[in-house]
Every structure is written in C-alpha cells, then in structure tokens.
C-alpha cells in the first residue's frame, strides 16, 4: 500500500479511535456536556477524513461502494493483509 494511503488510513484510525473512546466514556457519563462536544467534534473530523479516503482510495464500508462503476467493496487488500 502506498505511503500516502497508509498515512490517511492511520489518521482515520486515530480519529475513529478517539471518537470511540469518548463513546465508551459517554456510556457511563451520559450527561457530560464537554464529552458530548468532544465526541461530536471527533466524529465530524473522522467523517471528513473517511470521505477523503473513500474518494481517493475506495470504500471502507459497503454503503460507500455506491456511485462506483463496480462493486469495489470486495477489493483487496482486506484489513489483515495490510503491511503498515
């Protein structure tokens, strides 16, 4: 995998991971307004990078395979095959 693609994937991993850690925190602190705001911010940024990744390199979810000339969802590499 090209280093540009790997870098963008890594950025997305970092943003989605951040979102998820706030998600788990909110499961036990549902009224923490600061955490809610951090979650929203991280999620928005993650979505932005995911869209950029999809546009440049192909879909990370089945739904993002639409508007493509073929069903790109099944393209390789799959996650366990990537050499970071």
């Amino acid at each position, binding site marked *: 995998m090209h280093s540009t693609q790997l870098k963008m*994937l*890594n950025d997305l*991993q970092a943003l989605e991971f951040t979102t998820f850690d706030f998600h*788990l*925190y909110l499961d036990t602190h549902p009224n923490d307004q600061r955490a809610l705001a951090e979650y929203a911010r991280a999620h928005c940024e993650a979505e932005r990078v995911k869209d950029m990744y999809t546009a440049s390199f192909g879909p990370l*979810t089945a739904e993002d395979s639409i508007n493509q000339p073929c069903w790109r969802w099944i393209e390789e590499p*799959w*996650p366990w095959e990537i050499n*970071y």
Partner: protein
Amino acid sequence: MWHYEKKLQYPAKVGKADLKMAKYLITQYGGPDGELGAALRYLNQRYTMPTGQSKGVLNDIGTEELAHLEIIATLVYQLTKDACVDELKAVDLGGHYADHDRALFYVDATGNPWTAAYIQAKGDPVADLHEDMAAEEKARATYQWLIDLTDDPDLKDTLNFLRVREIVHFQRFGETLDLIQEFQNSKHVF
C-alpha cells in the same frame, strides 16, 4: 445488528518473523482469557442487563472486543503466512498445520478448542459485572506476559494498545457496577 468497517482499529504490525509468538498469541484468539471469550461473554450478558446504560456498555465493549479479535488474528496471520512447513514444525506448530494448514482456529496455546465454559452469564447483574471486571484484569495480565515474551517492538506496541484497552474496559465496567448497585439499592433489591 452489526456494521463492519474495512479497517483495523489499530495499525497492527509484526516487525520480524518471530514465529514462536504465533503459538502464544493464539491464546488471545481462542483461549480462556482471550478476545473471543470477552466478546461473546459481554454480548450475551447484555440481553438481561436491567438498565439502558448497562446494556449500552456491554454492547459497546463486546463490539470492541470483536475488533480486538480481528487484531489478534491479523498478528497471527502476518506471522504465519510466509512460514514454510519446516519452520512451523520447528516451533511446534506442526500439529496445528496438520489440522488447519495456516488457517487460524479458536484454540488456546496448547490447541484446546474454545468452549463456552470460559464464560458465564449468571443473570445477576452484580455477579456478571464482577466476572467482566475479572476478565478484563486477566486479559490485561495476559497481554503483559505476551509483551514479556517478545523482543519485537512493533508487536509490543500492538500488545500494549490492547493491554491499555483492558484497563479502560475495567474502568467502564466498574462505573457500570456502581450505577447498577445504585439502581438496585434504590429499588430495595437484595
């Protein structure tokens, strides 16, 4: 229901072909304190949790454990995919090869298959959360021993990520226990 994103939660990599590690790592795939057990335990317990909050935590941590299962699988896959049969025999993976070639399987480090006897669902939320907290501590300890077993810094990084996740899970289960106990005490449940 589940949604799959074609991406590992963490950029798991193996720096060198430390094939012996594959034999030890498999315990976190299908062993007693591994990620499969964790995922199935939490996802099964969630059905009978008494509050939305506890259902949420069991659901979400159970789901994250599936992502960790995928990371362990990736490590083992990467370690074994280019190994030749003689190399596998040399690290005592000949038995596994005879049964599975290089396919992964839900076994512990000595080849015993995964069993539901590794998990419990007592139906009592306090008992179940204590089991969950114990499971997280056992998994954390196992990751520490796996870190000790390898010299590969990339592998250590991935194992440490998984180790820290167990600490965070313990914290969330602990908070859930507190909320459940408050909930039960307010209902005068004994």
